[in-house]
């Protein structure tokens, strides 16, 4: 009987998360969100285009590393120059670090001279959980067919030190470059690094 109960507990423990994890190489989880202007945004609105998802939290030192140095803005501009859509997503819950109203989120982006295609406010963390976004920043690249082709860090130097950007390999740019040239993405996954998403 004990073993029986144990097995049941195992079953319940294993069954804990009911959602399916996003898997690189498979369809990216669909989502509907609200942007900083209060408009509804669907991932499917951008079918046929490459989409970059960026999780952010203005108070996180790792986000500051990439915005303070201009690295994130450069990556953004390069992606958009190639026709990609860049969605900045804020999943901080109300009252937590990085939570932003639409006005505030736009002001922060403007102050940083960032040019996201749109900023999505996700204070309930629904999109964040669907993508299992762990960190800020946490980057995802979705190709024109809706397939998730990259998930992970912005680069391969997981530190808060801006000096490391010079020697880091920007994995988002690398993935976009592979996509543009019709190659399979050489590094489709990496360990995301940064602050935890403040769900």
């Amino acid at each position, binding site marked *: *009987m*004990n*073993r*029986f*109960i*144990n*097995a*049941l*507990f*195992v*079953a*319940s*423990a*294993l*069954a*804990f*998360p*009911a959602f399916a*994890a996003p*898997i*690189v*190489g498979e369809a990216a989880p669909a989502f509907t969100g609200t942007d900083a202007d209060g408009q509804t945004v669907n991932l499917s609105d951008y079918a046929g285009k490459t989409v970059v998802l960026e999780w952010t939290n*203005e*108070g*996180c*030192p*790792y986000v*500051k*590393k990439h*915005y*303070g*140095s201009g690295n994130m803005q450069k990556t953004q501009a390069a992606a958009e120059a190639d026709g990609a859509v860049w969605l900045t997503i804020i999943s901080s819950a109300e009252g*937590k*670090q990085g939570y932003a109203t639409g006005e505030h989120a736009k*002001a*922060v982006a*403007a*102050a*940083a001279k960032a040019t996201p295609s749109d900023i999505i406010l996700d204070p309930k*963390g629904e999109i964040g*959980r669907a993508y299992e976004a*762990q*960190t800020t920043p946490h980057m995802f690249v979705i190709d024109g067919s809706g397939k998730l082709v990259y*998930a992970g860090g912005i680069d391969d130097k*997981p*530190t*808060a*030190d*801006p000096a490391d950007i010079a020697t880091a390999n920007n994995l988002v740019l690398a993935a976009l470059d592979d996509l543009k040239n019709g190659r399979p993405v050489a590094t489709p*996954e990496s*360990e*995301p*690094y*940064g*602050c*935890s*998403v*403040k*769900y």
Partner: protein
Amino acid sequence: MRRLPVLFVAALAAAGLAGAQDTAPAHPLNVQASLVAETEGVQPGDTVTVALRFQIREHWHTYWINPGDSGEATTLDWTLPEGVTAGPLQFPYPQRIQVGPLVNFGFSDTVLHLTDIKVPDNATVGQSIPLKAHAVWLVCDDICVPEEASVSLDLPVVAAPPPPNPSAAAEFAAARAALPMPSPWPASFAVQDGKVTLALKAPELAAAGLESAVLFPVKGGFIKNAAPQAVETTGDGLTIATETGRRLSTPEKAQAVDAIDAVMVVTGKDGQTKAFELKATPGPAVASGGDGDTLSVWTALGFAFLGGLILNLMPCVFPVLSMKALALAKKGGGATSAARAGGFAYTAGVVLSFLALGGVLIAIRGAGEAVGWGFQLQSPVIVAALALVFFAIGLNLMGVFEVGTNLQNLGNTTGKSDGLSGSFLTGVLAAVVAAPCTAPFMGGAIFTALTQPIPVALAIFGALGLGMAAPYLALTLSPGLVRRLPKPGLWMERLKQVLAFPMFGSTAWLVWVLSLMAGPQALALSLAALIVTAFGLWLWGIAQRGEGGWLARGTAIVAALAVIAALVVVPGMTASTAVAAAETSGPKSEPYSPARLDALLKEGKPVFVNLTAAWCVTCLVNEEVALSSSSLASAFEKAGIVYLKGDWTNRDADISKLLEQHGRAGVPLYLFYKPGQTAPAILPQLLTEGIVLDAIGAPSSPSS
């Protein structure tokens, strides 16, 4: 234009913060970093261990080599005189730190990172070696702050073996004990259906008895950090099963992984914790019969069926089944086709009721309500109504009145044509009364069911129902079995009367539950309702025998109305304080609240949590058997354990939440938080005093 100043300030702030690393911190650091040597000096050519000591601000934490879902490991860069060399920075085993839905691996309070420093043979005795290093770390609570500090230490070169540094001896001993040692046992891993199972072939560990085991892969991406880890001891070791991370998320990727380096932290029954470094290679996850580790849908269905079978033996179901068997016996096994039809009708009744209950549970769950199994017994009106139904059935069995038409079919079908609906209703009744019994036994499976897609969830509920209906169905389907039932006779009357007593027992129990839920007023009211019921049914019986005429019938109808009125009043009543704590000599408990638990854990107090309900028989048995002795009370007192009791008799959202956190849909649940730990040990659902004493690390007396 009005926005301009705001933007300007924001830009300034951003620039200032981005550059903060180059300047001295404006605020005191969250971590006090220092270098400490294990001995008071070092001999030429010798090695000394030096610790980077972190004193971390309360509630903040720093990170392990693999920080988990977020964070960054601490680094240390040495600047050393020529000839002096430093070994790698060593990390003690970490703790799991829950941050919302994410889990980090790291350290809180005090942590010592050890490094071995080798000094050259030509070091001059009497001089000091300046050890300088730059430490960089990330420290977080709700927010994260990267911090850094230059630390230094002058190490005297001495001629004689140096004495240990007295102020640091205890901390060094603890730090060494927390360093993972190479595992003497081989480890393997297997990946299937999104789960990775790691097996450690360690018969010594299995034999010694395990309290807990936690796996920390050295690199990220192998496991889903926040997923629960299910530990099972097997004949020759243990297995840990959890969900796969991105590196193992598809069979192709898993194939490409040739080893997983990990630290396994094992706490034995003796309360000792050790950490082992292991390299798991692909292989069979379990050496012997460990299907339980990767429970597929089919296995879950099988267990649900088995659970349903067991339900037949439950005190709240068995009387119903007995009555069905009784009805069969009355027919003497003659009308097998009618019996078969009755069996199927009963099965349909049970299965449909379980499906309906499951459907309701899923629907309510979907609506975001914190409900658990057994919830229908959390409503006083249902409890009161059930008590009356059981009482009436008991009176019927006693022969106070006969049920000629519809009501009879609830408990006593005869195999006539209208017996089919009766059988169906019996099935429904059996399923409804089974619910409180299922909570303790089926909590896990139901939770599984509720986290599955709806078709699977319903299938599990259906399997539960099928299992429950199976014995009676078998009896009706196999004529041989039916014929083996005893011939009808006077014994049946006697048996029928005897069966009234379990019904009265159930009534008594339900009334007691009601008194806890809704207080003494409801108790008085329900007792009055019982008496009125008895009176009404007695009159009804007289009328049935044609002895009372219209007067008896009329009075019976008035009695029925009175009972209904009583039921309407009951829900308005609530218990003043419904803690089911009868006076015992066991440990003194306080009511559970999340705030109280948090406060105690922050104080670093050991806490024992008991989640219980008056209608949960398993809970009450456990409390009687394992939690009510004075020796346990003194063991709790000695260890300074605070005993928190959560009463789920009436629905309580806070308790539902705690249950859910630990993968349960119902009570009982027993948790023990060791001093200073926020992740509790989960005790078995069937307790003995020995298990409790073991769990809290007290010596269990030989007599218990």
